[in-house]
């Protein structure tokens, strides 16, 4: 099977900021993204847990984006700003896809 190189961006982000991240990604021209719920986490000195906090104000999500390197690069600029304000971390890696024109 012939595969093609793309980038995978993974953003671990507070849930309330997910729509903002989505707008940044759409503006950067990515073809799509998927948001996964997180259950719990640890960072800095504190832990959070979805079912243990009725305010839900510390819930995190994980956004996964497959896109061209160029689009990711455009998105990262604004993500830096977003993550200066909002709680979250991101990482980028290289992956292979089957249908390169989809991304």
């Amino acid at each position, binding site marked *: 099977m012939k595969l093609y190189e793309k980038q995978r961006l993974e953003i671990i982000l507070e849930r309330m900021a997910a729509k903002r991240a989505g707008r940044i990604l759409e503006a950067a021209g990515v073809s799509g993204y998927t948001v996964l719920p997180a259950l719990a986490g640890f960072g800095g000195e504190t832990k959070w847990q979805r079912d243990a906090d*009725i305010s839900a104000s510390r819930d995190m999500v994980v956004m996964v984006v497959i896109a061209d390197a160029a689009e990711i690069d455009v998105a990262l600029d604004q993500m830096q700003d977003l993550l200066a304000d909002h709680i979250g971390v991101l990482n980028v890696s290289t992956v292979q896809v089957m249908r390169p024109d989809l991304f």
Partner: protein
Amino acid sequence: MAMALETLSSPIILFFALGLLAALARSEMTVPEAFAKGLAIYLMMAIGLKGGVEMAANPLTGEVIRAFGAGIVLSFALPLVAFAALRLTSGIDRVDAAASAAHYGSISIVTFVAATEVVQATGLMPGGHLVAVAAVMETPAIITALLLARQANAAGGPVAGSERGELLREVMLNASVVVLVGALIVGWIIGPEGFEPTKPFFVAPFQGVLCLFLLDMGLSAGRGLRQGWRQLDVGAITFGLYMPLISAAVAAALCWVLALAPGDSALLITLAASASYIAVPAAMRLALPKAKPAIYLTLSLGVTFPFNLTFGIPLYTAMGQWVGS
């Protein structure tokens, strides 16, 4: 005193205490978020419907309008007091202080409901419009807090990716406003007769559902305390205990000036003294993302909510009886 003791031995408080103790003892038990959120929607629908039905049965008097005015003024003004108090007596920075102040200007609907039970047990009949007053008090505090925070960091444009109107939508159309105000209007339209067939769901089991919900709130409050207390200095924790008293005193004075009825006064004082822990935290994540949830949540859910539920409500009820006309 007797009232205080009776409050403390009500099943609602006891289940809250159970949750609190379990969390402090590091039990892993949780109530699933989806289930708890469903219960919260149920509670707000029930409260809204009941309030609306009562309003449908009573005319809109001048006293009702004065109560709305008082609620709005309190929600706008109390964050100023809270902000000043926090800055004076604790080491909390300006943004965190502004965010916390928003919580204390806004209200806790569970505290309101618990107070309603106690007030009714004393024989007073607060008006259904107090539910509408509660809904109206949710939001103004957020505006005051944003103005306070803007002063704090003059710089800083909108957050990347933010959209015109998103904060407004979050603040005006969050679940608690939509369900509370919506159910209130539905209750108003359908009136006592239309309400009848839904009572076996919205009235009879209400107290029991509240027990289950408060078990979960106890778990949340306990875990918040266990995680968050290290982030708070003594000044901050004390604030969580004296701020509701200040708010109650201000509200009581206003009730006296406006000649509100004793039952209505008791509930308005409780609303003023209560602090938000669901709607305002969500709004703060959007509006002031740099403010630390560990601070404002520990204060409102971990310190002020338990205080109000146990000692506050009997006191506010007594104050309402005292200042009410």
